[in-house]
């Protein structure tokens, strides 16, 4: 089971040592953690980040294997390469953690986030919002005479861009799920 294969990662033939020297450059990594879905497991993961002073940019969690009771936690974090390696090793130590994958170094991955965005307005602004939503392939999931709720799925950058455009057009509220990510290929 590869949670403990992160140990394998300690050999120089793995991703663990692909970067030969410690640098001070802050990197952004997406880490997928497969955990036993038992009470408190999310608190263990979050507590690790707060207790050791690591960053969380985004975190999503849901049970993905209902028979095996496994949840998948996707964490976007930033840190120097040394810190990123520590984060992975520390995650691997948590007893209910089965697997830890650094999607940023293990290969190309697909990242998606879902957002729902409420835009309030009338007249030209309302028409413009609808037109831009069409360009971004956001769908309207609720509408009143003076508001829309758009649903948009995409990489975090795309959602940022859409939200920026909507702001002058009457964006009043936004809810985002955080990143879910998978490695490409088989």
């Amino acid at each position, binding site marked *: *089971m590869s*949670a*403990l294969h*992160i*140990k*394998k*990662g*300690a*050999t*120089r*033939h793995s991703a*663990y*040592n692909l970067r030969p*020297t*410690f640098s001070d450059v802050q990197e952004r990594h997406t880490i997928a953690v497969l955990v*036993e879905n038992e*009470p*408190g497991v999310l*608190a*263990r993961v979050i*507590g690790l980040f707060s*207790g050791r002073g690591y960053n969380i940019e985004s975190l999503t969690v849901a049970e993905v294997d209902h028979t095996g009771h496994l949840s998948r936690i996707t964490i976007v974090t930033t840190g120097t390469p*040394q810190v990123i*390696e*520590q984060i992975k*090793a*520390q995650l*691997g*130590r*948590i*007893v*209910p953690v*089965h697997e830890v994958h650094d999607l940023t170094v293990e290969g190309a991955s697909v990242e998606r986030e879902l957002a729902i965005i409420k835009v309030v307005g009338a007249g030209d602004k309302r028409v413009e919002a609808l037109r831009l939503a069409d360009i971004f392939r956001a769908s309207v999931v609720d509408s009143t005479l003076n508001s829309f709720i758009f649903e948009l799925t995409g990489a975090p950058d795309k959602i940022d861009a859409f939200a920026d455009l909507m702001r002058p057009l009457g964006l009043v509220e936004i809810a985002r799920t955080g990143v879910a990510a998978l490695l490409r290929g088989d």
Partner: protein
Amino acid sequence: MTREMTGAKMVVQALKDQGVDTVFGYPGGAVLPIYDEIFLQNDIRHILVRHEQGAVHAAEGYARSTGKPGVALVTSGPGATNAVTGLTDALLDSIPIVVLTGQVPTFMIGSDAFQEADTVGITRPCTKHNWLVKDTDSLSDTMHEAFHVATSGRPGPVLVDIPKDVQFATGDYSAPKPSTSHYQPIVKGDLEEITELVAAIETAKKPVFYTGGGVINSGTAASQLLRELVDATGFPITSTLMGLGAYPASGKNWLGMLGMHGLYEANLAMHDCDLMINIGARFDDRITGRIDAFSPNSKKAHIDIDPSSINKVIRVDIPIVGDVAHVLEDILKVWKARGRKTDEASVAKWQDQITEWRKVNCLAYTNSEKTIKPQYALERLEELTKKHDRYITTEVGQHQMWAAQYLNFEDPNRWMTSGGLGTMGYGFPASIGVQMAHPDALVINVAGEASWLMNMQEMGTAAQYRLPVKQFILNNERLGMVRQWQELLHGERYSHSWSEALPDFVKLAEAFGAKGILCSDPADLDDAIMEMINYDGPVIFDCLVEKHENCFPMIPSGKAHNEMLLGEAETQGVIDSKGSVLV
């Protein structure tokens, strides 16, 4: 095979099935059903401590001196919160203990019930893992898994929180079976890395073994293999505070302890070596000193069962994840198969250099005929007890460092000290745990009076169970290490680092029905120590020592290994402003 029984009975049955013979604990409302079951059986001895912190430290002492997991049993709420220091101590020193806590009944959890605390929440960051058991049917499996997690991989403390209704209810008990959980840490090291290390051993000119508590945790086989490897290669070896005894202090390759108060020859060997072989140590800040000046010219190998230890502080060249005994066995196998080669001529030269460093005699001190020097007290203690079946525990501070410097350990599991957390108050309850595990051994807690007072209530425990633990208190009426730092760093402003109201320790001992010995004259010291050894019962030895003695050698905070202070020589201003923010 399953049997129906109450949760409380399951707890006791699981302890028996796990081979537990001693439990340290303190009863309370939420564990009464378990205490009832303890009352009804004779296989497991329960030792009533006087404070839950004492129970956990005693379990640690038991674990460290036997290699088996220690067990503590405490009640909910304050019982659990009092256990937190011991749990954290065991986490930092990787000591396998299982702490059982009572909890309010499941239907009252979250209602701020009497003696309710979120025990699993509070102890999540200070245990290796913990469980809240919500139904009796899963209790026995959880108990067995708790022992599995505590003792496998990098050992550590675990906690099982058991609500009172779960203790009363009946369920199916299942006996222990090989763990089927996914938590199965790898113990064998990567052979390719091991071969790379062997190649480095063959060509090293200035090698050093740097060993730690991982060797002791790995079991006695690891110490045996370490001795074989060290003696076969002829490489010098040093150890952290936690690893003392893995290699015998009388061994010819022994350099003594390294680190902040380590020996000159050990620290210089670390600084100047060209191959550092870290076995079961973790590059703690007490060891490395200034990171960017740490052993600048060496190739570093690191053997550790915990992948997170590797490259955490110091970048290593040859990382080997695995259990020390397994890895050492493979190293020896590969090294022998390749012809047992070392660069003998260069290593001999290196040993000559080390001999030169030894001549500095860094543990020398100015003795006195009038007052007992703490170093002298420990030298005499060593001399008069070394032939005994002896176990040493310590509190935390100057006395701890002097004990590590002046006492010699020939075997593992003989030295119990709070290394990572530095818990004052650890040593006395730990000595009780050690004595319970080794009833006929001579168990001595080398203490300072300030640390000792932090858990002095355990005199009641020692007296009740007639445990002949010897409390060897080096009494300088100061918080000695705090005082030393205030002298070096804070302009000799001794802010709150002494006590003006110390008890009369002899009378204190007598009040508990124990023996008290006071000694203040170096001429009386030997007789007094012999009196302590020969007394069959608990002893408080109040050894009045020089009040202003500093502990040397010392690597000041923020300095490198080759910048150590050897003695009272000019110590002012040695720690610059950058170093003074470090602890």
